[in-house]
């Protein structure tokens, strides 16, 4: 990386954690940061942030959704940035400082402390929720016992999945709710129509989307 010397230790750590440095450059950066107490703290904080983001227990999807909601509100309040640098401006000559700012922003690492990076995290988290939700929605094969163990693992990541909005309320998928529904079908047959038709209905129909 050409401009490694021109950036702070924090940014160099960030670039290194992104895997953008060669082995030689990594060695150089590590050599520098061991002598910088603040850089060591930054290294630790980045590692913890990474661990938290990768851990379903420490960063449940529900919180990320809340984060995404807050992020969307903040984004709405942010001033609009120019979409691209107009060619005419480049030809006309841009001041050195303005050009440096443009180039710098283009080369910022993915985990640099800029707001757009956070937005990307939010979008990535929502994508994870969507994938987990999709898995819940589609799981229909395998024995019930196997399903219970699978859904138990998933519960901590995405306890609720909104399948559709309806006039009565949101249509949800929730593994625990599926269990309650099954219990209702098993014991809730106190109906005069249970023997003639209700039992067949409950035996045939597992519930929405299963």
């Amino acid at each position, binding site marked *: 990386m050409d401009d490694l010397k021109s950036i702070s230790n924090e940014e160099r750590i960030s670039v290194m954690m992104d895997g953008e440095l060669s082995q030689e450059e990594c060695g150089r950066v590590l050599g520098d940061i061991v002598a910088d107490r603040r850089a060591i703290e930054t290294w630790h904080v980045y590692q913890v942030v990474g661990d938290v983001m990768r851990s379903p227990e420490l960063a449940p999807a529900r919180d990320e959704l809340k984060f995404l909601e807050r992020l969307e509100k903040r984004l709405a309040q942010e001033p609009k940035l120019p979409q691209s640098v107009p060619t005419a401006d480049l030809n006309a000559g841009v001041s050195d400082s303005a050009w440096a700012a443009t180039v710098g922003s283009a080369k910022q690492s993915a985990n640099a402390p800029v707001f757009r990076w956070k937005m990307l995290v939010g979008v990535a988290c929502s994508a994870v929720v969507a994938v987990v939700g999709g898995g819940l929605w589609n799981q*229909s094969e*395998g024995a019930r016992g*196997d399903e*219970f163990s699978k859904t138990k693992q998933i519960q901590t990541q995405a306890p609720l999945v909104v399948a559709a909005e309806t006039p*009565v309320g*949101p249509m949800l998928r929730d593994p625990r709710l599926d269990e309650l529904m099954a219990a209702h079908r098993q014991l809730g047959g106190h*109906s005069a129509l249970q023997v003639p038709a209700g039992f067949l209905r409950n035996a045939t*129909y597992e519930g*929405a989307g299963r």
Partner: protein
Amino acid sequence: MRLSGQRCLLFVVLWLSSLHGAVVAQSAAVDVPLTPWLMRVHQASRQSVYTGTFVVSAGANMASARIWHVCDGTQQLERVEPLSGTTRTIFRRNDQVITFFPQSRVAIAEVRESLGLFPGLLKSSDSAIGDSYRLKALGTERIVGFDADIFQLVPTDRMRYGYRVWSEKKTGLIIQLQTLDLDGKVLEQAAFSELQLDAAVNVGKLAKTGSTQGYRVLRPDLQKTTADAQGWVLQKAVDGFKSTACFQRPVAPASERQGGSGHSTMQWVFSDGVATVSLFVETYDSQRHVREGLTDLGGATHTHARRIQDWWVTVVGEVPASTLSAFANALERKK
């Protein structure tokens, strides 16, 4: 849910038949005594031998199953082989139900007392179905190759749904059942798409399919209890609904509980004789219990969730959302 071409066609046929039913419903409506009719449809299921394909459509979802049903007047044997969802087979001998999961070789055996309640309950003075529903005869229609009488269970208030029932003319067997919302629109439909009455079914062979040999048999860890004993009370009764049962069950299978510290869930069941409502009460968990209020599960089924102090209440039932809310709001912790 993916629908194959055949399923789509079947869905359209069922939808059209439901529309047709609505047309028939408007043509004539004669009041009919409810209890004798319920006795007859019960008798039909206890005396008829049949095989067929049963289809349930609820909202945008549909499921079907192959059915074998035999009886000798006292005993009923039934085998249900669902063609949709988890691979499983349900075997019923009177009120004993075994669900086989062939892939994991697990069988869940349970006794469903509710299956033995009727028609005995209909004869007793405890039956209050007549207070909540009136029965109307709507005429006749030919359906899946049989002449059927059409009846409608009309609710007397807006606390419950209505039902339209097609029962086979000679035997009284129910061959189609629709759940109708408060405006009379079809919410759910369960019907035979193909039926063979008096089919030749080998009873011995059918009984053998209920054998659990080669399966690990699990029995639900259910304990009878009362809401009172669990510290709960319904501060205001919901019109037409009576408490019918209350159970305690572990929150998760024993193998998944950590150090035996799993909290149990209470299931309090209410019925108006046709519709049933389950009130589930479990310990509040901030990780899982994040959304209070109503949810639509498609078809006639709704749920209403509510936090009460350290507990989470989930009310489930095939009733209007307002009825679930009435239950959820009436439940109170005893002081």
